[in-house]
């Protein structure tokens, strides 16, 4: 595929570097506060775990105005001795560039894939620029399974606060697991390792004008790797602590982009997921340990109010594709007092399946359909918070496991109604 995003300046860098073994990409947009730490962790990781390998660090920026790219250019580990006993003399090459195309994480990734392809790298990793908990070990854990284990895709596996990553826990993980049969716990984690071969494969796909170019990139990468039978694993990276995503991006847009990408992938790989039965664990690397996590503040009243507002105003739209049983339940839930508020797993799974079918059958305009899911998602999150208020992390994980099983059980109904 012809290169479309590499500019002259980057081409000069590529001509100079020629080939590389490892590439680590960092997409960014106004992350001046955290990106220095991420760059240092990546540099230390490459120096510590891959001293013999020719490595490149690529920052693909979306036009930051807070000096993010300058920080990337100027950040170096002055004194490697303080971190490592033995280190290589040559630091990793560093490329900082602005990407072209639709503003979003996916477009940033495309530039990283293009550079990886041009340098013919063996292994790549991408890490978010808003991370505060990244350590040099993340680079080892994301790259080594590719270089030494011949895996093509390394998904992250973190310990997160029970109310962190709620889109992952309530929709994307259970849905992806039920559909494609692989228990990848953080399919939209944001930090991945992958082979040069898979990066080339990604570039053959014409998806860069869709929501994949935005927040849909993570689920697209994971699903594409699974559905096309690439060798998958996950690595335990410890805690994931990060700044909130782009504050300008509202929840509704974020949810829409992720869910739309997941539903679009259901169309593309319908023959794959229909054949898949049950689910299986994927190989997991890394030493697992308990981590302390920052507390998360939750405003339950506001969440339930938003759910109620949705029920009051959007029921007319939902009635076009939700069954009478679900709409009756939702109407009853609207009247429940805060402490009794409850949206059970079965109802939630039915809601997601109904939305997937409505998107497939084009019952109403897709953007309207998927944006109308926001109040229901907020209601589900509020119900989950109430249910698990006093639960430990392992209790919560058990609860998510139950939800996954319900998704798997109801998959046959979804499959039957799909045609």
């Amino acid at each position, binding site marked *: 595929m012809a290169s479309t995003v590499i500019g002259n300046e980057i081409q000069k860098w590529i001509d100079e570097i020629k080939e590389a073994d490892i590439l680590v990409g960092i997409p960014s947009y106004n992350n001046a506060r955290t990106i220095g730490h991420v760059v240092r962790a990546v540099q230390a990781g490459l120096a510590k775990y891959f001293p013999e390998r020719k490595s490149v660090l690529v920052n693909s920026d979306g036009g930051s105005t807070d000096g993010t790219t300058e920080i990337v250019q100027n950040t170096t580990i002055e004194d490697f001795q303080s971190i490592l006993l033995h280190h290589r003399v040559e630091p990793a090459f560093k490329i900082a560039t602005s990407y072209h195309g639709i503003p979003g994480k996916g477009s940033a990734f495309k530039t990283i894939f293009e550079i990886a392809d041009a340098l013919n790298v063996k292994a790549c990793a991408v890490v978010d620029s808003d991370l505060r908990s990244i350590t040099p070990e993340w680079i080892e854990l994301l790259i080594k399974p590719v270089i030494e284990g011949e895996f093509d895709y390394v998904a992250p596996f973190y310990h997160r606060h029970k109310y962190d990553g709620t889109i992952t826990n309530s929709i994307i993980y259970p849905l992806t697991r039920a559909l494609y049969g692989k228990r990848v716990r953080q399919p939209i984690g944001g930090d991945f390792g992958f082979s040069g071969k898979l990066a080339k494969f990604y570039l053959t796909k014409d998806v860069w004008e869709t929501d994949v170019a935005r927040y849909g990139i993570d689920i697209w990468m994971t699903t594409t790797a699974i559905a096309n039978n690439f060798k998958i694993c996950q690595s335990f990276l410890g805690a994931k602590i990060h700044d909130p995503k782009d504050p300008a991006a*509202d929840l509704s847009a974020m949810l829409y982009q992720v869910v739309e990408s997941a539903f679009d992938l259901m169309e593309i790989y319908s023959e794959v997921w229909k054949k898949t039965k049950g689910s299986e664990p994927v190989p997991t690397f890394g030493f697992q340990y308990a981590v302390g996590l920052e507390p998360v503040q939750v405003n339950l009243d506001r*969440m339930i*109010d938003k759910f109620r507002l*949705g029920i*009051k105003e959007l029921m007319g739209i939902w009635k076009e594709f939700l069954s009478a049983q679900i709409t009756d339940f939702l109407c009853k839930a609207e009247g429940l007092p805060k402490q009794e508020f409850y949206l059970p797993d079965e109802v939630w799974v039915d809601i997601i399946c109904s939305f997937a079918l409505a998107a497939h059958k084009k019952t109403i305009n897709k*953007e309207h359909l998927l944006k109308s899911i926001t*109040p229901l998602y907020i209601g589900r999150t509020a119900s989950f918070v109430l249910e698990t208020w006093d639960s430990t992390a392992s209790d919560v994980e058990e609860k998510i496991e139950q939800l996954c099983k319900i998704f798997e059980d109801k998959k046959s109904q979804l499959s039957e109604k799909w045609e």
Partner: protein
Amino acid sequence: MDSFLQRVIVEPFNRFLDRVLQFLPDLLSSILIFIAGILLGLLLKNLFLRIFSAIKMDKFSQKYGLAEILQKSGIKEPLSVILSRFIGWLTIISFSILSLHSLNVPAVEGILEKFILYLPNVFVAAVILFLGYLLSNFFGRAALIASVNAGIKISGLIGRSVKLTIFLLAVTMALEQLGIGKGTIVIAFAIIFGGIVLALAIAFGLGGKDAAKEYLEKKIKGEEKRDDIKHL
């Protein structure tokens, strides 16, 4: 007596017969044009239906939400059927006008001329109204969903206002096109719309000054208790 009968009955009858005989070829050609129009209309309707099916117009209309908008407007047929039927009817109407014109009757010609000159206005007005209705539904719902997601309590009112405003604008444009109460309707619309905006401004300024203060304070100082939930 004979000459009287000749003058009163036979001669007028002969003149009438002459006129009928003169008119008959025009009538015949008019009927032929009309029948040709019907046949051509049916032919074009079927031809375009096949062309639209071949280029997958219905899939395209579904993809971009047009099918759904039509459904919302109470139109159950797919876009390809509607368009091909429209082309068929347009052909039949055009040939009907031609056939009437070929009768060479001055009174009919006068009416036809006026009708033909006015017809584009009716057509454009109908298109404006139809598009206005579709757009008002679409944007009304978009506004409703966006305001619900933003947590605005008066989301229903916002959705309905957007819908009504767009439809009123379409009605104004359609009436303007038809030449009905030209200046009056535009002025009336401007007065109503301007009045609504002014009323809202005054209501917000006077009645809702505390709400405005609270809103600005929240925006500047941040809300007292907010979610830290990171959804992704």
